[in-house]
């Protein structure tokens, strides 16, 4: 041993540098093939169909262009100027805000209330959960059409209900002051079950001994909810609100069968506005400007919200 060490010591200074250079890490072997095999497909797809289009949207938004040939008619920020002077777009912005507000003020409390009832083993809990979640798995288009029927002034449930109690038939989707609220109702109907499931998952992952400890400490039912359950569900609530925001910003599929953005643009959202004024009229530059604004709002919301509210989650 001592001998081996001694000979080594004399050899070391010469070879140390060379050896360090030659040394390849064992785990590095085989890395290249796996990277070459596993990454490019995702990278190409993502770049080609997500990143480049987004970059192009920014580029096209500075032009007036019908999508054929090359964009040549440079308008600088003209598209944006027009956009922010358009009443319909401002309505769309307002509507998106309203949807977020309703989600937070109505949908999430409703979901939370139901979750506290259904998170534990009471008879029938599973069935109720299924029923409440069902609208969420239906397509927005189908939900929109179903509610188009419900709200229909001639054949729908609202009309029949109004007849029964003898009031004049409301044409809710045709009334520009009412239509957006009718849509908000559909949104709550379709999405509260999803939030409820999030809360149930959150409640079930909670340590129930904590609730029992609170009970032993003498907390009443409401106090237990207010001071124990709710704070412990904090991260789920913040996540839930995040999904409500993201969902609202992309709302399109449901509006189309219900109102298509009408009457007189009163139910436009940003995406239906983009579709109506950008896609339908093939105004690539203007539509892209809407896309850019939507992108900026999405990213700011996502970043801002995560930074401010979900820092510790």
């Amino acid at each position, binding site marked *: 041993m001592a001998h081996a060490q001694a000979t080594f010591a004399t050899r070391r200074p010469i070879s140390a540098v060379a050896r360090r250079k030659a040394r390849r890490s064992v785990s590095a072997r085989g890395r290249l093939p796996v990277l070459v095999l596993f990454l490019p497909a995702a990278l190409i797809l*993502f770049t080609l169909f997500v990143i480049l289009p987004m970059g192009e949207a920014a580029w096209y938004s500075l032009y007036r262009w019908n999508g054929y040939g090359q964009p040549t008619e440079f308008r600088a920020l003209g598209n944006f100027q027009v956009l922010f002077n358009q009443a319909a777009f401002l309505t769309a912005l307002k509507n998106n805000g309203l949807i977020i507000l309703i989600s937070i003020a109505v949908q999430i409390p409703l979901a939370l209330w139901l979750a506290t009832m259904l998170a534990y083993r009471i008879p029938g809990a599973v069935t109720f959960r299924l029923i409440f979640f069902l609208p969420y798995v239906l397509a927005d288009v189908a939900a929109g059409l179903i509610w188009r029927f419900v709200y229909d002034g001639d054949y729908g*449930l609202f*009309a029949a209900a109004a007849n029964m109690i003898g009031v004049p038939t409301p044409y809710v989707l045709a009334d520009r002051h009412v239509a957006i609220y009718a849509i908000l109702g559909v949104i709550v109907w379709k999405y509260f079950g999803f939030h409820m499931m999030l809360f149930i998952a959150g409640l079930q992952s909670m340590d129930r001994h904590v609730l029992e400890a609170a009970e032993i400490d003498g907390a009443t039912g409401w106090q237990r909810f207010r001071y124990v359950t709710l704070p412990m569900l904090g991260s789920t609530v913040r996540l839930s609100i995040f999904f409500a925001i993201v969902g609202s910003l992309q709302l399109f599929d449901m509006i189309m069968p219900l109102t298509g953005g009408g009457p007189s643009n009163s139910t436009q959202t940003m995406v239906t506005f983009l579709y109506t004024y950008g896609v339908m009229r093939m105004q690539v530059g203007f539509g892209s400007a809407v896309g850019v604004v939507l992108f900026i709002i999405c990213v700011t919301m996502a970043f801002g919200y995560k930074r401010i509210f979900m820092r510790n989650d």
Partner: protein
Amino acid sequence: MTDASSGRRVGAGTRLYLYISLTVIAALVLLPLVTTALGGFKSLGDLRVNPFGLPNEWHVENYTDILFGQRYWRQMANSLIIALLTVFLTLVVSATAAFAFAHVRFFGSGALLNYFLIGLMFPAATAILPLFIRIRDLGLLDTYWGVVLPQVAFGLGMSILLFRNYFRSLPSELFDAAFVDGCGYIRFFWYISLPLARPMIATVAIISFVGSWNSYILPLIMLNTETRYPWPLGIMVYRGEFNTDWQLILAFITLTILPTIIAFFLAQKHIIAGLTAGAVKS
């Protein structure tokens, strides 16, 4: 309500209040669906005077006409093809990429992962016009791939993140043991990671299938031949054609959402877990 949450000693009064609330809400949730399905059996006149009740006369032909026609089945088939292509491509592309992010250390891996996560922040709608032009220029307009490729691409951020987190949650000693047993990265992926990731494969498959099955805006923009329409587009066309023949529209709606509802009740556990846990875990 929190008496229920501790699961014991629920008084009769509380219990009554609890079940009444639940039943009322459940009725409100189901009412539109049930009246839709029943409405499909009515005549238009019957629907007008009696939208809530059972049909006076069961017009089964509203349904059978659709079922014996081509249109409904063609739309279902289109939706199914698009959804299956989307699921398959999503799984292959995202599981492999996620594996690289989870287990292979390489320069810039963090930055590259963040690059993919940009996709989580905005919907396809923001870039829909340039996307249309790209698909057109690639000659993919009015093909299934024109819908599938953007759909997969926009789902990549979420599915890569889900897979990566899952791969990372596997105990690292498993990786060591496989390495000692003679696995390289690729064999480890094939023999260990992938079989163990079956729950996550199911989750990602469900998320991308449901997303594709229900999607509207991408096919709306990329497809223009009616024979290639998936059902959400098809049903809108149908509604446009039959305009106020609500009984036919309702029957058509019922039949189009029926597969979803059946699948939901057959695989409720997996679907609920997939759609919510998927959201939470990313």
